């Protein structure tokens, strides 16, 4: 990869962000072409979420460095909330991700949530598709507000939840059902020592109390000392390797995402017109399984 290809990746993402009706055919054909890339199946998509201030950007920065050191290329999508007042957004995560500007094998794109779908930007799914065709690993980072923790499931193979010690977030997570979502957990700021260790123990207890089929692994990380970063990469890779039927899982998740897009675009009436959410999702799944992107499936099922 060269930085030259970064230019085409950037242009492709700008295109999928473009909401002018005239652009839709172009977007659909781009996504259809990208889906044919052999890289897509091999790509590892990690969604990273957690409350503000836990050090997600620094962790993404550390993950980037570790992945690059192992020879993997990395695409990062950092999603920040839009201002409900102005529709604008401050996208400040990039500033905390340290990388070499001449390295074509790392790519960082910031995106505003747009306020449409609660957490993730409307174009996030398509942007992940673009990145999946170009990089070995794709990291999608969102701040844990509102829906984003749940939305991120739809565009990632592996969901990583980052928490920090002594933040009192744990109870909130349990209440909000957020602990049921992640595949891997990171307790960041492990350099805080005992507090961090205690947080890890509390977390494990909380997870076991939930009694889910599979208790997700908990990794202690510190971006200051580098502790746990390589282990986190290993655990993330393992989770992805253990997915029995990746393509079925991706189809399922894309269908979920497509249902969100459809609902956003056509409202509940539109969904009812298609026989309700379950029927519609089954139809979307079928289209996606036969090679359609989420966006194209939504376009094909537009209300008559």
């Amino acid at each position: 990869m060269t930085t030259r290809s970064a230019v085409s990746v950037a242009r492709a993402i700008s295109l999928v962000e473009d909401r002018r009706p005239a652009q839709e055919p172009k977007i659909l054909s781009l996504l259809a072409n990208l889906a044919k890339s052999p890289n897509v199946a091999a790509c590892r998509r990690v969604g990273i979420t957690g409350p503000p201030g836990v050090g997600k950007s620094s962790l993404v920065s550390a993950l980037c460095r570790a992945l690059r050191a192992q020879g993997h290329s990395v695409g990062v999508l950092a999603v920040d909330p839009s201002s409900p007042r102005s529709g604008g957004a401050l996208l400040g995560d990039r500033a905390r991700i340290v990388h070499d500007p001449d390295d074509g094998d790392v790519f960082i794109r910031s995106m505003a949530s747009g306020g449409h779908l609660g957490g993730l930007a409307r174009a996030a799914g398509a942007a992940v598709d673009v990145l999946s065709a170009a990089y070995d690993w794709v990291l999608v980072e969102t701040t844990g507000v509102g829906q984003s923790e749940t939305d991120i499931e739809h565009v990632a193979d592996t969901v990583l939840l980052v928490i920090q010690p002594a933040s009192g977030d744990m109870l909130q997570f349990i209440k909000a059902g957020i602990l049921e979502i992640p595949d891997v957990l990171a307790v960041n700021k492990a350099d805080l020592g005992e507090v961090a260790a205690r947080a890890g123990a509390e977390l494990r207890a909380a997870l076991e109390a939930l009694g889910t089929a599979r208790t997700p692994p908990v990794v202690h990380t510190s971006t200051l000392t580098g502790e746990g970063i390589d282990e986190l990469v290993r655990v993330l890779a393992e989770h992805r390797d253990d997915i029995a039927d990746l393509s079925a899982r991706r189809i399922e998740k894309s269908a979920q995402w497509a249902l969100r897009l459809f609902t956003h675009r056509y409202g509940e009436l539109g969904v009812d017109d298609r026989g309700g959410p379950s029927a519609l999702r089954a139809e979307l799944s079928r289209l996606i399984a036969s090679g359609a992107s989420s966006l194209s499936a939504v376009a094909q099922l537009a209300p008559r």
Partner: protein
Amino acid sequence: MADKDRPWIMRTYSGHSSPEASNALYRQNLARGQTGLSVAFDLPTQTGYDPDHVLSRGEVGRTGVPIAHLGDLEALFDGIELEKMNTSMTINATAAWLLALYVATAEKQGADVKLLRGTTQNDIIKEYLSRGTYVFPPGPSLRLTADVIQFTVEHVPEWNPINICSYHLQEAGATPEQEIAYALTTAITVLDTVRARGVDGDRLAQVFGRLSFFVNSSLRFVEEACKERAFVELWDRLGKERYGVQDAKLRRFRYGVQVNSLGLTEAQPENNIVRIVLEMLGVTLSKKARARAIQLPAWNEALGLPRPWDQQLSLRAQQILALETDLLEYGDLFDGSPVIEKKTRELADAAWAEVEGILSRGGGVAAVDSGTIKERLVASNAARIAAIERGEQTVVGVNRFTDTAESPLGGADAILRVDEKAEEQRIAAVEAWRKRRDDDAVKRALEELERAARSDDNLMVASIAAAKAGVTTGEWGDTLRRVFGEYRAPTGVGGARTPELGDSYAALRERVAKLEKSLGRRPKILVGKPGLDGHSNGAEQIALRARDAGFEVVYEGIRTTPRDLARAAVDEGVHLVGLSILSGAHMELARQTLSLLAERGAKVPVVVGGIIPETDAAELRAAGVAAVYTPKDYEIARVLSELVEIVERTAA
């Protein structure tokens, strides 16, 4: 008059181009009646890079004197007896290094190190919050601070090892209460660090007594006088209650001042000399809260670097107040004044409550690392600017009384020009220095520095040895960067709340929304600071307000290279790039950014903001910059309106 108070120490903050040129300037200033030195270092020296490092490009000798090694510091103080001089050095991340060079230089002059007097600024926390010349993460930075403190208390007892700065917090928009609170929080953080290393009892009291402050003074001089009185009271209380300092003399609040630059205007700049004098009143009128040392900015600071005559005028203002007026003949003018007491009480109580709040939430470092203090400062600054924009706060010559006669003082280019060849010369000089030294001695000194850094040994010892061996500033910096790692402080822009904005913003939002329709996505801009200049207040405010106008803003923060910014502009698919450069390196950095953008095939307009003389602005526009903004463009709404126009024109 026998019972007249002694005047405060009078300094001028200066240095530029080269050690030799700065030495000539110092000697001239001392001959004109200056009673102490205040050394301004260039940004590479402040952040631990040699002149030939990529990040130094365009910055060498701009904001101060470049010091790359012992030979440079010897040349800087040539013919100036350090044993008799009182030298203040504005140096923070690399304070231990510059103090090591200073001690080595003094020894070479034959001085008794025990008699050296002066100050190293050495306050890293305010660097994270406002000034931006930090290097290492908080932990190792505080260790360096504590090393300097412990070393000087023992070996250089007359030295002020740290000058805790509330100055820069006010420049970043802090209210007086915030200024007091965050300065005291920093002092507590430093003292607690020293105490945790086992320094206590009389030793700790000695350390407490050596801590000094560097405060700001605005045009609201009545409030400023009360602020200083509140400082005096709270510092005394802190010494007694938290650190058990018995000796009242050691609990004295000792501070130096540079008066406010924030209030100086580019429009009708001659008015600034009046402002500077009034700002001085707040820190001189009250005898019990009078500054120990004062340095005044020059009247034309908002235009560029001051010339010797500009600096002389500021020095004369100090001399006239101290020596011609009767101020120093009286006791404290305010004692017993109910007005002053009430205001002082209010400030002290509000500040103390803020201090207690920060301590209860995990202390100073946590408040910096989480971005909470920074967010408050950004919000305070936004409120200040909004008040000026709306005309609620008068700024003469800016938002009122703007009609002016032609100034006879020369145009906007009546400033000092740094020699364009200075950078090349410094690069050649450091290369020659490296060839001349004993490579084995250098290698051994650096190995010892690294060993000390990985242990708990005081780094001053290894730094002084390295200074004597001929190690360079960049080598010292690189060694410690390798051991300690680097740090990027929170920008504070994400979480900062902005004040209520008026109709101008409603109109802007409509235009931006319309632009979104025609572009297919929200207009997106990149705001960043290439080079080493860490003064991010302006860039932060533009980023914040651009968001409030409806733009998507990628904020890159400080210390980036043109290469970083060009890559970011491409990856992010932005419609406009905004550069903020206050160090004077704008020509070099803007040109580089333009050519790298072209190289990557990104056709985006670039705008530049900073302290930019009109001739430079014209040259930048000729080179392809779409617009240039300077401090006189205080109406952010108008600036944003122009940015919308530029995107409308170029992105369609």
